[in-house]
């Protein structure tokens, strides 16, 4: 097949740790096969070559935190047929969205020596707050099998097959003893979207919510129960202020425990 007939894949980075796009390079078994099927047209972490858009599929990592990036994401959208945001930063604002809960005054009190050199917004926001997103792939980091699934789904013009149920379902499926019973709370499994194959419970620790809230999570009843068991408000607050702190369900729950 001639080079220019292959669909073009682009990878874009906003505010992030690079872990999600690294997932693509970590697909050691699939990387060369993927490269045969698509043209990697723009992927600065891996290549200095840049092929002009438009791109058939854009993977977007990271959140929007600067005025410049708030502009740049529109250019990316314009040059992409499909745009998929990957990871907690891109789908919820990431850990850097913890700034969203501080008031600006509190932050400026930790002023840097030469703050005038720096430009930054006072909120970290997900890609979907700025442009239309065709699909959101959750996780901090994303799961590599889900990534390969998403890429091939878009190349075949079908909907990606990723679950929207909770981590609990995965736990049951792999036969892990429920962490809430075995190790004791807290475990965010009941309110967190699946995708990691219930990793933490299988390592004897509670889920800490890398994949963000599942559909219609009942966070309030979970925390009410834990309060009865003696968890403090500050502990409940921190639990929901993680990598998906700015996802609506988690944000509301953490705010309920803020004095």
């Amino acid at each position: 097949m001639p080079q220019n007939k292959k669909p073009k894949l682009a990878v874009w980075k906003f505010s992030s740790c690079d872990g999600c796009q690294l997932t693509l390079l970590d697909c050691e078994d699939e990387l060369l096969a993927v490269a045969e099927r698509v043209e990697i047209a723009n992927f600065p972490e891996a290549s200095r070559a840049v092929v002009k858009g438009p791109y058939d599929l854009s993977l977007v990592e990271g959140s929007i935190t600067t005025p410049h990036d708030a502009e740049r994401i529109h250019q990316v959208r314009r040059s992409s047929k499909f745009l998929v945001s990957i990871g907690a930063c891109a789908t919820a604002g990431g850990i850097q969205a913890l700034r969203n809960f501080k008031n600006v005054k509190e932050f400026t009190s930790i002023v840097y020596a030469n703050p005038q050199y720096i430009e930054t917004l006072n909120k970290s926001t997900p890609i979907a707050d700025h442009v239309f997103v065709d699909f959101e792939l959750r996780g901090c980091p994303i799961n590599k099998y889900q990534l390969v699934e998403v890429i091939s789904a878009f190349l075949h013009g079908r909907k990606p097959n990723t679950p929207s149920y909770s981590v609990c379902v995965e736990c049951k499926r792999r036969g892990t003893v429920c962490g809430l019973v075995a190790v004791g709370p807290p475990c965010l499994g009941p309110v967190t979207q699946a995708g990691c194959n219930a990793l933490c419970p299988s390592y004897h620790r509670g889920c800490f919510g890398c994949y963000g809230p599942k559909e219609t999570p009942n966070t309030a009843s979970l925390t009410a129960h834990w309060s009865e068991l003696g968890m403090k408000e500050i502990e409940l607050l921190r639990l929901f202020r993680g990598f998906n702190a700015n996802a609506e369900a988690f944000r509301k729950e953490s705010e309920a425990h803020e004095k």
Partner: protein
Amino acid sequence: MKNKTLKVDYLARVEGEGALLVKIKDKTVTEVKFRIFEPPRFFEAFLRGRDYSEAPDITARICGICPVAYQMSSVHAMENAFGIKVDGQLRALRRLLYCGEWIESHVLHVYMLHAPDFLGYEDVIRMAKDHGDAVKRALKLKKVGNDIVNIVGGREIHPINVRVGGFYKLPTKQELQVLVERLQWAIDASIETVKLMGTLPFPDFEREYEYVALRHDHEYPFNEGRLVSNKGLDIAIQDYENNFVEEHVEHSNALHSVMKQRGAYFVGPLARYNLNFDRLTPIAQQAAREAGLGSTCNNPFKSIIVRSVETVYACEEALRIIQEYEKPDQPAVKIEQRPGVGYGCTEAPRGILYHRYRIGENGVILDAKIVPPTSQNQKTIEEDLRQFVPPRIDLSQEQLTWQCEQAIRNYDPCISCATHFLKLDIQRE
């Protein structure tokens, strides 16, 4: 030719967002700016008020390429604050985890990010067309590193099994055993890698640097040791801030770290190698010699060979640890938290990563400081370019620009790391 400006607006094959500006006037370099524009993420600010036990998982998110390094520096700092020592097999397992990260990160850089420069390819995918076997070997070798992190840490990127005091769950002897054969292969494959990298064409470029790395009693350093240099520095970790300061310069979103009174210094594989050659295994030493390296090396371009030598070492060390492994009874030592200050410094793939935390009552973090390797090398990178460019000034714009990029990639800069420790002003929207 009179005036010339080299510009790379978006530096490729590095982790994060950086740019380069070199201004030349009448054959002299008037300005060099290695600019980091990766947006700051305020880690030090929002660590305040968090529980000490959250630091390993939170700081891992500074960098997806070297999360283990952040986890290791943070747990060591916390244990230092609480007066705890993690020993025996738990300590060995941490070393094993670090071996995995070194292998994965070094192989990524050597084959996929740096070798294409030497061989004239835009990227590894294009390189694979002509060097298919080498690239396949690289992917397989990298996977060995990733699988170590996977088995010990739970997953490759942002492992979930590390905690202050040890781990959540320990691997069984059998679970590690599956790595033995693959590591035996990996030792050979990394020796091949050293050979291959030794044959690359190296620019004639040497400078006199001050190298800074950890040095341990008898091991090649990962998690512990004193901070030493080739110019007489020899300090305990807690004296780091008495000897190094950070400067905030206008063109960069990262702080430049300098040594007090002495200026720029060099951290990373080349520094470790120069200060710890005698701590490498005989096989790793021999591989280095056969590739034409002495016990010291001052050409930063040859860091690609040194990274390969360290990969040999990490594979051997991983194998040794696995063969001697006996599963301990407890996955972690007991923590008794108390207020205080703790220091940690470990050898990330790219060099020393310093953490300091002040812990208050109830284990709450009052204050945090994190100094990643790339911010420590930034000044050295700029100084390299100042010397590298003048003799090559007659090269075409395209060639010279590419060579400058290559010179930056000698340091495997992780720009994501370098900015994320900033404390900043917020501009109102």
